[in-house]
Each structure stands twice: as C-alpha cells, then as structure tokens.
C-alpha cells in the first residue's frame, strides 16, 4: 500500500554521511522545520509553549523569531483541542506540525488521532486528506516518573491510516521529519527526550529520507539487533562491546514502524540466524511483538534460536533512579542477551 512520497528536489539519503558537520538531534529537528517552513508557507507549528519558550526542551528556539506568532502558535493546555484543530487545518489545505510536549499526553488525543485523523481519508472515499505531523516525545530515565516517561508508539502503530516515525540520529531526524512534513498523511513522529543533545553528522545540503526503508547502522554476521529510536544507540554500544569479544552484531534501525521494512529485517535474520528486537516501549503487546513475529515468520527456516524481545519492563516507570534504570534495556543487557543467543554466556 505504501509508496515513498515524491520529494521535490531532494537527494534521497541512505545511511549516515561521513565528514559532514556535526549538530545535535534538537538542532536537526529545528533545521528541518525551518527549512520546510521556508519552502512551504502552508507549514505551521502549533502547541504549548512553542513560541518564545521554544518548548521546554528548547527544540524550537528561534523559530518564532523567523516565522512569527502566526506560524508558531502557542496554545492553551488543550492537547485534544489543538490536535483536532490540526486535523481540520490539514483537511483544508494547511500543513500543521502539532507539538505534543510529552508522549504520555497523546493519551488525551487518541480520539483526534485514531478516530479522526487516521480515518478521514478512507471514510471519505479518498476525497479528504490529513497532511499533518504530530511531533511528540518518548523515553525514560529522565527521572520524570510514570506520567512523563512513556513510549507509546505501539498505540499509533496499531492504527491504519497513520505513519509512525522513530528517528535514532540527528541525520535521520532531519531527513525523516522533512519527509513527514511532505507526506500527505497523518504522521506521528516520536523524539526521544534523552537524545536531544546527541550530536551527529548532518550535511548542509538538502536531503530527505523515505519512509519504510530500514537503515543498517552497523553490519555484522553473528546476530541481528533490530532497534528503534534511542535503543539504536544502545544497540550500537552493545555491538561495540560484542565486537571486542569476537561476536559480530548487525544493528538495524527500521526508522519507521509504519510502514515497516520487513524485507531488510528478514534478510538480516536469514543471514545471522539470531535476532534480538530492542524497543523502549513496554515489552508486552509492544512494537517488539510485531517485529519479532514478522521476523519469526519470514525467517522461520533460517533461525538458529527464538527471536528475543527486549522492551521496557512491564511496570509504570518508577521515579527512583535506582528503579527506573532497571526498566529499560541497556548496552549491558543487550550484549548479555546476544552472548546467550550466540552460546557464549
């Protein structure tokens, strides 16, 4: 059903370039927004404290200075309301980028996202469309407790009509956000709060990254680690450790859960015969379940061991640091799982 969106004058990028200047994840998001707002006067930002404050994470700092309060709109604390306003604006020709400060708050907007935005195009027989981006956050270990630490991308990944993006590097963040803004459909874009300061190479020149194309972040032969968002960084760290021990891990980042690049995942699983799926959402009924079962089916005859899933522990995220740190996968726990899979434990 999915065909990559046409990207006017965009170099379609794969993998991460070398030798480019380094900027942070937050800067990459800001650049993508600024460039798209310059390119297309219909693009605007709406959300809480997005203007002068530039969001509590300062991701949008400066945008209001360039584009003014007409295009960087501060709202009341009304997530359902301004998400719904985004849907209506998108249906009538605008390209809203809705800012939901903490991913936990999408719980307040699920009717607007799942019952309205996701279904309008289909219910109208294709006559109406909702080219809207919902930018929100995910990720724990920020000591923000149970209502400010969830990674709820599994909910929206379950809803037909939505596209779901989980960038893991500054390069991917910029390229994927541009594609999201140019997409004709509602896109939910999850940014891990803990990565905003992460630096990485991002070229000066224009580029965009298509949806549904997984990125092999590191090649390997013994075990495949499929990881999303900040878990990609965790997986890469684990792969480094494993390499020192003679275990060659391949790290694959699907980059979008919808559409999902099943081909690339299955091919890697066929090659290594061992797979770990790492994601920061709760493990039970989470994104790891879908990816693991797709691989278990697609690579059934080539797997040497069951596909292993590592998600966030199935508990509300506790505040106490000593407890919170236990709830999410770490480079250590991923490496340990890889050793077990490879019979080295």
């Amino acid at each position, binding site marked *: 059903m999915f065909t990559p969106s046409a990207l006017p004058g965009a170099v379609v990028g794969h993998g991460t370039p070398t030798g480019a200047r380094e900027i942070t994840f937050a800067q990459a998001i800001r650049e993508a927004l600024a460039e798209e707002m310059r390119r297309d006067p219909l693009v605007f930002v709406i959300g809480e404290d997005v203007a002068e404050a530039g969001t509590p994470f300062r991701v949008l700092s400066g945008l209001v200075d360039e584009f003014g309060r007409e295009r960087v709109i501060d709202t009341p604390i009304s997530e*359902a309301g301004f998400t719904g306003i985004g849907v209506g604006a998108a249906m009538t020709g605008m390209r809203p980028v809705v800012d939901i400060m903490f991913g936990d708050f999408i719980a307040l907007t699920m009717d607007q996202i799942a019952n309205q935005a996701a279904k309008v195009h289909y219910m109208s027989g*294709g006559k109406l469309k909702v080219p809207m981006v919902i930018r929100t956050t995910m990720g724990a270990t920020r000591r923000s407790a149970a209502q400010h630490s969830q990674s709820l991308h599994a909910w929206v990944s379950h809803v037909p009509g939505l596209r779901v993006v989980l960038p893991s590097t500054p390069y991917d963040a910029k390229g994927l956000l541009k594609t999201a803004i140019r997409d004709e459909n509602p896109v939910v874009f999850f940014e891990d709060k803990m990565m905003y300061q992460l630096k990485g190479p991002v070229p000066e020149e224009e580029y965009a990254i298509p949806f549904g194309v997984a990125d092999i972040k590191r090649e390997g032969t013994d075990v495949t680690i499929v990881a999303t968002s900040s878990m990609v960084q965790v997986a890469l760290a684990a792969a480094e450790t494993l390499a020192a021990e003679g275990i060659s891990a391949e790290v694959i980042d699907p980059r979008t859960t919808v559409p999902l690049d099943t081909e690339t995942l299955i091919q890697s699983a066929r090659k290594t015969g061992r797979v770990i799926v790492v994601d920061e959402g709760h493990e039970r009924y989470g994104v790891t379940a879908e990816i693991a079962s797709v691989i278990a089916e697609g690579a059934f005859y080539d797997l040497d061991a069951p596909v292993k899933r590592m998600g966030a522990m199935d508990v509300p995220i506790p505040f106490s640091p000593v407890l919170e740190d236990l709830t999410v996968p770490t480079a250590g726990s991923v490496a340990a799982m890889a050793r077990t899979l490879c019979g080295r434990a």
Partner: protein
Amino acid sequence: MARSTTARGKQQVRDPAPISREQWLEMYRKMVTIRLFEEQVNELYTSAKMPGLAHLYIGEEAVAVGVCAALRRDDYITSTHRGHGHCLAKGASVHRMFAELLGKEAGYCRGKGGSMHIADPEAGNLGANAIVAGSAGIATGAALSAKMRGTDQVTVCFFGEGALGQGVLYEVMNMASLWKLPVIYVCEDNLYNEYTPRSETTAGSLRARAEALGIRVAEVDGQDIRAVYAAARDAVERTRQGEGPMFMICHTYRFRGHHVGDVNRTYYRPKEEEQQWMAERDPLKVLAQWLIGRKMGDAGLFERIEHEVRADVTAGVDFALTAPYPDASEVTQDVYA
C-alpha cells in the same frame, strides 16, 4: 425572531432578513427534500434494504436549511451522526446520498463511509462524524486554516446539545474565541441526548457556557426557518467580517426516534410531547403558513413542490438500489493518500 446577544448579554432584536419569494420557496423545497429523503431512508430500513442504522433529521429541517441558506458554497460545514439534513442543505444530491447509505460505489464516499460519514468537499461539507463533538476540532481547524490562508470562508460546526458533554468542545471554542476564528457553532437543542433528557445531562445554562468563553450567542426558535435564517445571516456576516466565533442555539425537536430502530420511546419521552411538536411546530407547516399569509404560496404550489421533490427522491433511491457495490479491491484503497 432572532435574538442576538454579546458575551456581555446586551440584547438586540433583528427582523428576519427581507428576501425574495423565490428564496423562501427554495428553502421550503430543501426542507421538503430532507423530509421525503428521510422518510425514504426509514422505508429502506423497515424493508431491510439498508445496512445498519440511520439517525433521521425529520423535524429539524429548518436548522440545516436556514443556516446553510446563509452560507456560500465555498464556506465549510461539519456535521454529525444526524447529518443527512446538513449534507442535503449544503448541496448534496439525493442520488449519491442514497448510494452512500446503501454502501454503493456511486456514494459520496464510495460506500466506505455510510450514513454517519458523508463528506462532500466540493460543496464545502467536510464530513459527518460518528463521534459526538468529533467535528468540533475539525471545524475550528478549518476556520483557522481559512484565516491563515487569507480567504474569507466561514465554517459552521453543527452538533446536538449532547455535544456539550464533550470537553473538547470547550477546548476549541476557547481557542476560537482567543484567535477570533471565523467559525459558527450551531447547537441543535432537540432536548434529548439519545435516550436521556437534556435536563439530566446539562447543568446550568447552555448559552452561558459559550458566553463565558467570550463568544457571542444567538438563540432562536429552530422550527421557524425565518428566525434561523435571520440569525444565521447575521452570524455569518459578523464572523466573515472578523468579529470572531458565534454560538447559535436552535431550539428544535426530532420527530422520530434517536435512530430508525428506536420505535418505542415512551420510556424516555411522552407521546403527547411528540404529537404537540409535530402538530404545532412542524418547520414545513410553519413556513408554509407564513408564505400563505403573505400570499407567496398556496396549497397547490406546495403540492407541486412536494410532487417534484418526491419524483427526485424516488429516482434517487431507484438509482441507488440498482447501483453497483464497490469492487472488492476497494477495501485496501485510500487507507493512505
């Protein structure tokens, strides 16, 4: 008569706008179209020719027709589960409406939407909605969009008084008021939320709820299309000129059940109440009598109109009944644009 008050409560009475006989007769024709369309829908249901259920607009025709008569074709509306009247009033054809209700490809949504999701963007209809207050955000967003794009389009958001139970309505009305958006919230107060009387679901005052958000309120007799039209014309003018949102309360009544299957209603509303409204407050009769009094029409004329409309409705339902269903391959189409 339409009474329009500012958020501060100042009263100002206006006369119904003086418009031509032809325009009144056109409105009458539209109301008859809705009436006969809905009676046909009920017939399709009782004869088991229509899949699912439908919420009939019979009795409330003056609201949709009176409000939409004050709109331009490029103005937007959003509608509800009880949306057939709004769609027809904004310009939909009975043929494609029936086709949609029967799940046929010729329907407004290729049969994928059905009774509660008819959308007709060409006529400015952004779609009916099966979530109570579900289109409040969409309508307000359309108004923001019109303002940002620099058009002078007005958006009308239709909903029943039950929608005042949904918090999102207050969220978006607050933003519409803050940002002076060109949107008119039209509350069809038919006294019941499904099977529960409004008095048991709504504390305080409807109008005060909008006024508290700094929104101007107009409260009218929804059975008298002249009052509805006058208030709507005033509201549309004001919002188009940038005065900000308006809230219209139209007192009305659904003559039939909550949906076509809601036949035994005495446990939630008395027969006498229904009979009284139908006898004394039928919007078609109210307008017809006024036109007769003004020598703008007579029984013969109204019969001729009804006759013509009935022919159209019959042609429409025949068309729909024989129209083909969508091809099976349609099921996976239009999930993504």
